[in-house]
């Protein structure tokens, strides 16, 4: 199984260890993983700002880089949501449509495609609060959100439950947006920061040592808010825990 690894631009720039953990984890699970070195971004910053025309070149580059793989996997549900749902600035040839459909977020890939039942190398004896990126939650359905009356499920949680030592805490508003919102974080900073501070406080009050998420973008924002508040809570991407990070 040949997997093309997509490392989102912000993760490439400031959280390379998540990319490394994702790579190592997929290789441990038997995947043949390549990182196309000419990749840049999924186009979401432009598309989410309404600038679809400006996203077309970036989308075309994404397709060029990833067209030949069996699966494209990214440790970011937000970027996968962009690819699967909103990558429409370029011509929708059958090849483009097929590529978009076989692009997966890491935890759904582990859960739905590889059907991983155990992580024998992992152990994480800490209290964690799970944070869901909104595109991951309500866009590509990594878990059941509170608004909808449906059977409860969570792919990230199901995976973490297989890691010895993990103890989940329950924040009051576990699926409320943290206020990152891509360019929203820059253009509406007061609301964005207030939401981030509230999110961090909610997890702290619930007793979390770590806020854990399948998306680094939210964590980057929350971490910035926490540090400014003087809150020592820690942050970790789920890929690192599943790959056996100790703390």
């Amino acid at each position: 199984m040949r997997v093309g690894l997509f490392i989102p631009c912000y993760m490439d720039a400031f959280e390379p260890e998540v990319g490394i953990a994702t790579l190592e984890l997929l290789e441990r699970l038997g995947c043949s993983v390549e990182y196309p070195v000419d990749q840049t971004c999924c186009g979401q910053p432009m598309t989410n700002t309404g600038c679809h025309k400006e996203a077309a070149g970036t989308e075309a580059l994404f397709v060029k880089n990833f067209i030949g793989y069996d699966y494209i996997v990214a440790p970011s549900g937000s970027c996968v949501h962009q690819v699967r749902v909103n990558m429409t600035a370029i011509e929708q040839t059958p090849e483009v449509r097929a590529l978009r459909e076989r692009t997966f977020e890491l935890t759904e890939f582990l859960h739905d495609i590889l059907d991983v039942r155990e992580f024998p190398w992992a152990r994480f004896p800490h209290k964690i609060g799970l944070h869901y990126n909104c595109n991951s939650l309500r866009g590509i359905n990594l878990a059941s959100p509170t608004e909808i009356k449906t059977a409860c499920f969570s792919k990230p949680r199901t995976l973490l439950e297989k890691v010895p030592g993990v103890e989940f805490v329950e924040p009051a508003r576990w699926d409320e947006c943290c206020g990152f919102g891509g360019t929203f974080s820059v253009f509406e900073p007061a609301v964005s920061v207030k939401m981030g501070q509230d999110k961090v406080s909610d997890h702290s009050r619930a007793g979390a040592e770590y806020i854990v998420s399948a998306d680094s973008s939210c964590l980057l924002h929350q971490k910035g808010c926490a540090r400014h508040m003087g809150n020592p809570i820690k942050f970790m991407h789920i890929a690192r825990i599943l790959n056996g990070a100790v703390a």
Partner: protein
Amino acid sequence: MSGVESTPGQTARVLHPEVIGSRFEGARDAEGSPLVHAEGTSKPIRARTPHEPQPRGARDRGNLPVDQVEAAERFIAATEHEKAHDERLWDMRLRRDRAAHALPEWEDMRALASQIKEHALTHLDSYLCQFEAAAKANGVVVHWAADAAEHNRIVHRLLTDRGVKTLIKSKSMLTDECGFRAYMAGMGIEVIETDLGERIQQLDHEEPAHVVGPAIHKTREDVAEVFARNLGSDPNDTDIPHLASVQREATRPFILKAEAGMTGCNFAVAETGTVVVCTSEGNADLSANTPPLHIASIGIEKIIPRFEHLAVFLRLLARNAIGTPMTQYTSHFRAPRAGAEMHFVIVDNGRSERLGMKDFWTSLKCIRCGACMNTCPVYRRSGGLSYGATYSGPIGIILDPTLNRKKYSSLPFSSTLNGSCTNVCPVKINIHEQIFAWRKVMSEEHRLPVVKSEMMKVLGYVLSRPALYRAALAAADEALRLLPHFVLADPLNTWTSKGRDMPAAPPQTFHAWWREHRPQSRGHP
């Protein structure tokens, strides 16, 4: 401690335990038992004293784009108001969840309601004619208004023809949309709002901040201050039943003397010609049934085909809005009382045009429950008045641009696109997808601020050229490499200016790590 009452906040998991009042503060009946209606079961919330001045809404910039960001920042700076507002609306959201999830058929009802509305909207011409014919047969006079101005003129003529000097009315978003009160004030006709929240807003010269709770952004101290200023009551008496009675005593004489009454319309039933109005206070009945003239303003999208369809919408509306099985009052108006007149004014005001918009026509399904506002994390922290429009929150973001494209061009960006609004919508409007689509429209029509559109051009250019992108990243010093590109390109440095730190710099990018550790990699399949 007896164990009956614990410290506020300990019993519930909330974000702002400090604003949760004693549970004995909730509404009580004469014997002291807790009331079980919507207000009675809501969480008692009070901002801490001393009294913080109420933050006001978006500044008037004429026809320039609303600066929601600036107004939101002022709302957040009023920390007591922001916390109480956030906690109050979140409580409404939780009560909605409990009421909705108690019904096994909830999701089926949402689908059914959506289908009924889509059917009605795609057959609107025939259902409107059917409604008109049925209403006429019932003895109702029916008027058609193409826009807000015509609506106001029609109502004004009805009033002047009958020598009406005082009009009482129940809450209607449509009349707010038409600028009705301001128009009537200019014509010398006194308009008295009978809905408590709407009356508070009228006395305070503010627009409604929320479609269901017009004054929900105000604390009880704010209301006491407004009433003291306008009605002469004690500014320090912030007891809610007392405040409600102050308004009631002041308004009842107007109800008795008014020569005309006005209501909005929640549902207009085509087959029977019935107008159905839902209220918590029974004020629609007072407004319609006390004076000899009842005028109902009806948006064309309020049509539902059959009487039995009401069952679906009434079960959804109150549960989704305030978490109760029904509204306190569900009033059906079908024919004038003996010796009295009933007039329906059916209003378009841009709705036909909206109906023709491929990406946005389903916004006409909205039944004004306000659930999208309650769940919206941006709305809860900004206040409804920050949107500077009749309709605020997620539904406002997608409705307002159809009324004024330029003025409301900035609103689609006051969202994180988190999608919670879409999930709570009782008629399944894809609200966040329409917000996303409006951003595209605003970009294509060159309505984005220059800083934003230029930033996106640069980003699009660099991100589509790998060599240039890598060169740009390498050239940036460590501090600049810390943040995503849209932050790098941020000339205002807003990432850190509002209380957010930058994370520590990693030694190398993933790209560089891969090059170092997997030098044999071909980089393609």
